[in-house]
């Protein structure tokens, strides 16, 4: 039994990449044991960092809240095992390429004692949607597809829009990564259950569960589970295996044939997209009161002794996870957090597993490509660009630093999928150049804003000075006037008084 592929929208370009996934999916996933130490960054989501609420030396239990959401788009952090907080200090993290960011460090006692779970209402559908959303907020759940946008806030924004569909993203299109595939096979009930919770929270009637055609087992399992649940609101969709179909906006386009407006959100076209792993995390939290403290992650690449998928506690360092899978091979040269198209290299394996980490990829370095050559305008980049940009023209204007042109050719719409890099015969690092150009544009915008603020301040100051001057002029005029009106008598008195003053001295 396979899911029907129908009503598909069109996606421009894209690439069929060698999947490289079978090495990790060849064996069943395993659970990484409690490490001796957990490193939990307080910022594992977009938005403001969470605020630690535990002190150094404090004992914490598994599932205990250790840092609460603080500020906009923030999400709480929970302890992923029991132990003692030994430090709150800077530690290398993956989102900064291995540079430091504040982390809560827990020395595990190995007992893995769970905090007493609150009584969970057996039927979530009796809860009003807003109560359910608040509950989801407390679970520390963020988008697990890589964007780590706090899920509750995303849902709260979505309920204010006119929604038509919930789309569950099971399109894991980047090579090497297979954690969602394994999750869909092994945690099917949780994913489907999570979808039902989301439908209730959003008051929606259709959820598309979308899976790529190269995951027949996941499709099979999902179809079986859905048949068992018998919920007619759930629809399984299969999409062709083309990178980057799994990008949020690309998936919406593929499923609904609607384009997410530039700078907008899928909710602008009536869609809410959630990753299948997020759906499972919501289920775990709502049904079992288990906050987001562990995740499935793919450990793979030719630099890893035994590629596989593992479930590990958040905060486990990459070094611990690699040890668990048998260590590195002698080909380990690059450590990439994420996939080979959009992941980030980190300089050290001391970085911890965080909510965003879907893949730990250890690769040997590709042999030298030869020098970067001039662009020959072959246009292959434009053929594969899913946004239908003209990367060759963008590159030209980015080199010339022509901001107006760069903008009009849609630089800010670039999703940095990396397709153009892979087809460039001149080996130009286009995606990197575009990232730099975007940063420059942001910088220029900041500078402009700063200059504008300075200008306003300067004008305000001038005005103030002018007002003060005007005020003084008025006062002086008034004094003169008073003096004139007071007449000679008063003047004589004043003169006398000042003479007296002088005499005193």
């Amino acid at each position, binding site marked *: 039994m396979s899911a029907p592929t129908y009503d598909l929208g069109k996606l421009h370009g894209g690439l069929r990449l060698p999947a490289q996934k079978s090495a990790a999916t060849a064996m069943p996933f395993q659970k990484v044991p409690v490490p001796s130490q957990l490193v939990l960054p307080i910022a594992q989501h977009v938005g403001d960092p969470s605020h630690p609420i535990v002190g150094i030396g404090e004992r914490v239990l598994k599932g205990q809240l250790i840092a609460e959401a603080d500020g906009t788009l923030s999400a709480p952090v929970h302890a992923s095992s029991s132990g003692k907080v030994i430090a709150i200090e800077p530690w290398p993290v993956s989102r900064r390429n291995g540079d430091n960011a504040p982390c809560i460090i827990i020395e595990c006692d190995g007992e893995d004692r769970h905090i007493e779970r609150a009584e969970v209402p057996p039927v979530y559908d009796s809860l009003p949607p807003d109560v359910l959303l608040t509950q989801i907020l407390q679970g520390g759940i963020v988008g697990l597809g890589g964007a780590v946008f706090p899920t509750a806030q995303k849902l709260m924004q979505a309920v204010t829009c006119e929604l038509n569909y919930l789309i569950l993203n099971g399109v894991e299109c980047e090579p090497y990564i297979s954690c969602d595939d394994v999750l869909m096979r092994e945690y099917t009930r949780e994913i489907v259950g999570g979808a039902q919770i989301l439908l209730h929270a959003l008051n929606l009637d259709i959820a598309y569960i979308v899976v790529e055609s190269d995951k027949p087992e996941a499709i099979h399992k999902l179809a079986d589970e859905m048949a068992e649940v018998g919920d007619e609101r759930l629809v399984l969709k299969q999409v062709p295996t083309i990178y980057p179909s799994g990008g949020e906006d690309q998936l919406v386009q593929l499923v609904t044939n609607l384009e*997410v407006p530039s700078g907008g959100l899928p909710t602008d076209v009536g869609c809410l997209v959630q990753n299948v792993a997020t759906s499972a995390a919501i289920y775990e939290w709502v049904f079992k009161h288990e906050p987001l403290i562990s995740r499935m992650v793919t450990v793979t690449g030719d630099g890893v002794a035994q590629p596989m998928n593992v479930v590990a506690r958040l905060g486990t360092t990459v070094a611990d996870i690699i040890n668990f899978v048998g260590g590195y091979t002698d080909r380990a040269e690059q450590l990439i957090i994420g996939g080979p198209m959009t992941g980030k290299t980190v*300089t050290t394996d001391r970085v911890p597993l965080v909510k965003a980490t879907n893949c730990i990829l250890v690769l040997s370095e590709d042999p030298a490509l030869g020098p970067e050559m001039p662009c020959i305008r072959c246009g292959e980049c434009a053929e594969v660009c899913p946004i239908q940009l003209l990367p060759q023209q963008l590159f030209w204007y980015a080199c010339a630093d022509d901001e107006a042109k760069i903008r009009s050719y849609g630089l800010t719409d670039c999703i940095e999928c990396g397709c153009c890099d892979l087809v460039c015969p001149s080996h130009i690092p286009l995606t990197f150049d575009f990232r730099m150009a975007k940063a420059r544009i942001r910088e220029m915008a900041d500078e402009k804003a700063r200059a504008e603020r300075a200008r306003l301040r300067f004008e305000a100051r001038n005005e103030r000075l002018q007002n003060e001057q005007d005020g003084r002029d008025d006062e002086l005029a008034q004094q003169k006037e008073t003096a004139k009106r007071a007449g000679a008598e008063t003047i004589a008195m004043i003169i006398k008084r000042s003479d007296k003053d002088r005499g005193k001295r």
Partner: protein
Amino acid sequence: MDFVRREAPYIAPKVDVASMMLHVMAALIPAALAHVWYFGPGFLCNLIVASLFCVGGEALMMRARGRRPMAAISDYSVLVTAVLLTFALPSLTPWWVTATGSLFAVIVAKHLYGGLGFNIFNPAMAGYVVILVAFPMEVNLWVAPRMGDIDYQYLTLLQTINYTMTGSLPEALAFDAVSRATPLDAMQSGLRTMLTYSEVRTDPIMGNFGGRGWEWISNLTLAGGIWLLIKKVIRWHIPAGVIAGLLVSASIMYTVDPGSNASPGFHLFAGSTILCAFFIATDPVSAATSPKGRFVYGVGIGLLVFVIRRWGSYADGVAFAVLLMNMATPAIDYLTRPHIVGHARRGDRE
């Protein structure tokens, strides 16, 4: 353990400029062999001269620009220029004519504009046009194609080399004895002397549909072009545009007045139409860049080729058509920008 820091994506591209250029040259081997078969070994002499001067010119210019000559030569684009220029030349061409074209192509049209990727004009066509204007006699001296049924004088390899080096024929031979108008020349002048198309076609050099020899060179060029399409070295937009532009305009004229116009099939296979569609116009550097723009660019070339052949003073017109459309490229690029996903479509604005 410590690791290197790199930027995404980490998968290396599988293509490179040098292999693209090698593919282009490989695709032309069958057509080159047909050229030698029909018009003698002069093609090879010209190819050697053109390659030497193109590569030499590039080395000189790279040195003058303070760069490593091999950095440019090793992408083989300069050899493609030499090959394309050679295809444009008659098999009997004195070396200084070929050299002038080669040096102009590489030094002026390519490197003075900034080298590969920056040239506005197709270097081979720019070089060809210069010698076409400067040495009209030499560049129009086509020998007769090998024909079993007509008794003609053919030059030996040594005589060809001698001609290439000195520009003079063996004493016993006159130019008239070896040269022959190309089918396109014959067609143009025939139609202009009020002969009808079918009368002109009775000339044995007209072959079956595109001129003796030429039609086979075109067929093999077409095969090479299709191979490039399959290998994705070129995309279909430009060839389709050139062929469509030429066929549509030629068909209209042929339908309106079949007596004084050559058939669309003749236009397609005579001369260098196919070479232009698949190998010359597809030079990415000087062509338009968006998929839609490339089709428009191709159509423009096809139309201009027809206009020049029908009303112009040159029999073929491919080189001029390409150069004229090179000039139009920035405008085409600007006007054919694709719709960016997520932005309002042009029609939506109102």
